[in-house]
């Protein structure tokens, strides 16, 4: 947000540019939007600068700015990553409510699988610049197929995680984008890697249940030498698991 524009001006700017609103209409629209996103006393907040608003209120204002021209698609990039949990659930609820009311589509970008499970209908899981699995939210969370999706879901501690057990991990780190593996991008970290995964980058394919996945294990793992597991050298594994 521009720190020297008031909340009202931030919203006014976008309806002036796209809808050529006059001053009086801009103010009316700004008050309307502030009210829509749940900012109390919108008439007074109109004159507030971003630094005078709390983190939660700033995120609400951002949403108000984005929705002022009634878009059909809202692109929300980590909308609740920087705000506290209790505010997080307020913002998510607001986004869901506005989505349902206006019928817009929502493209939610986040690393928080909890937020995804809470809001999304469909999920595309990305790894190193590629979509590796895409399905409706239930299919993806309940029966993940791609080893990365599985690994990620298994590794997150939840309130149900047993304290006495070690967390399962995905070893290693995300590959450097200038030194990508030749075959499957996830192969160096994949516990199911086969010889074919080293040599050949898998294509994206649709499975019978309608989901889309990018992995040589599906629909059937290859037979013969190509399907044999990759033998890993010790040092890589040692470093990757933390050596303990």
């Amino acid at each position, binding site marked *: 947000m521009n720190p020297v524009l008031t909340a009202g001006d931030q919203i006014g700017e976008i309806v002036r540019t796209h809808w050529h609103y006059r001053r009086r209409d801009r103010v009316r629209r700004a008050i309307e939007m502030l009210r829509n996103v749940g900012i109390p006393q919108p008439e007074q907040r109109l004159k507030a600068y971003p630094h005078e608003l709390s983190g939660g209120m700033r995120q609400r204002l951002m949403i108000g700015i984005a929705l002022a021209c009634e878009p059909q698609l809202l692109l929300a990039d980590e909308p609740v990553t920087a705000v506290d949990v209790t505010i997080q659930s307020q913002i998510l609820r607001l986004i869901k409510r506005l989505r349902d009311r206006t019928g817009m589509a929502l493209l939610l970008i986040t690393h928080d699988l909890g937020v995804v*499970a809470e809001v999304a209908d469909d999920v595309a899981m990305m790894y190193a610049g590629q979509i590796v699995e895409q399905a409706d939210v239930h299919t993806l969370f309940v029966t993940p197929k791609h080893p990365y999706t599985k690994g990620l879901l298994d590794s997150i501690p*939840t309130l149900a995680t047993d304290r006495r057990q070690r967390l399962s991990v995905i070893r290693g780190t995300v590959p450097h984008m200038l030194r990508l593996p030749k075959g499957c991008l996830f192969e160096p970290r994949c516990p199911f890697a086969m010889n074919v995964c080293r040599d050949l980058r898998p294509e994206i394919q649709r499975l019978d249940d309608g989901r889309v996945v990018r992995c040589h294990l599906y629909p059937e793992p290859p037979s013969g030498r190509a399907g044999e597991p990759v033998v890993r050298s010790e040092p890589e594994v040692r470093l990757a698991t933390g050596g303990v």
Partner: protein
Amino acid sequence: MLPAVSRQAPPRRGAANGPLLTVRHVTKHFPVRGGVLLRTIGHIHAVDDVSFEVERGENLGLVGESGCGKTTIGRVILRIYPPTAGAVFFDGRDIASLSRRELATKMQIIFQDPYGSLNPRVTVGSSIGESMEINKIGTRQERMDRVRAIMEVVGLYSQYAQRYPHEFSGGQRQRVGLARALVLHPELIVCDEPVSALDVSIQSQILNLLKDLQGEFGLTYLFISHNLAVVKYVCSRVAVMYLGKLAEVAGVDELFRMPLHPYTQALMAAIPVPDPRQRRDRDEVQGEPPSSTRPPSGCRFHTRCPLAQDVCREAEPVLTNYGHDHWVACHAVDQRLGRGTPSVSSP
């Protein structure tokens, strides 16, 4: 595991009775300056009269939202900030009376941001060895040996000691941070949001490592986090903070089985669960935390609390033990359970 180092810190006092760490009525206010003359025009009440103890080998989780004072407490404990009032005791000794070297060999910290907490112009080996150098521990060769040994312990190649922070990934940098904290063999490590800035796929690696190191070095963690699931996994006891005050303190199983404070309940309800089958329209807590320059009268949570009554606006609730070492500061709980005994002791 580590090579012996001469002129090492004095041997640890035998497993003394009493808690490892005692925080007594600690208050920390920060002045707010303003006007032309930059006079003090108010105070941020970061921490107000907080008391608790940490036993040897237990992990105490400190949870709450940003601005609730959890990081400030961590820093008062490490003597980074002097408290406005109150005192911190380590092994029965007031930390104000410890030398810098004693302090460094007893307590260390790991920070949230592994990018911001390492000097980009210093090799990670020097970063890790810095505290030994400052405190004049060992010879140059001994320090180098210990740096290499500790790097292997946290899962880094010791050959990387000559490299610079930008050559490491976030997870590796957090391992460097851990090595820095461990190199002087402290007994207590304050972990301030140690995994919040890391990729999801790396977080579990670091959490496992923290647990392994605890077993290996007999560490005690004060684990500061806003992530209740992580706290539940790592900690044996949890203290919930709200606007500079303790709202609830209990054993981890007790707390998650029966959270009593309305704020703790709200926090738990607000965590998004990574399972779409548990999607629900929750009763969310209204409003936002008020300003800590002018905290509300009475119970600080009353402005957002669904159970607030007149008494909550007027009188400040006392942290009270309701049995099973379950401590809560709430008038509504007091009326409901009514068997608590406000005492002079602390959790």
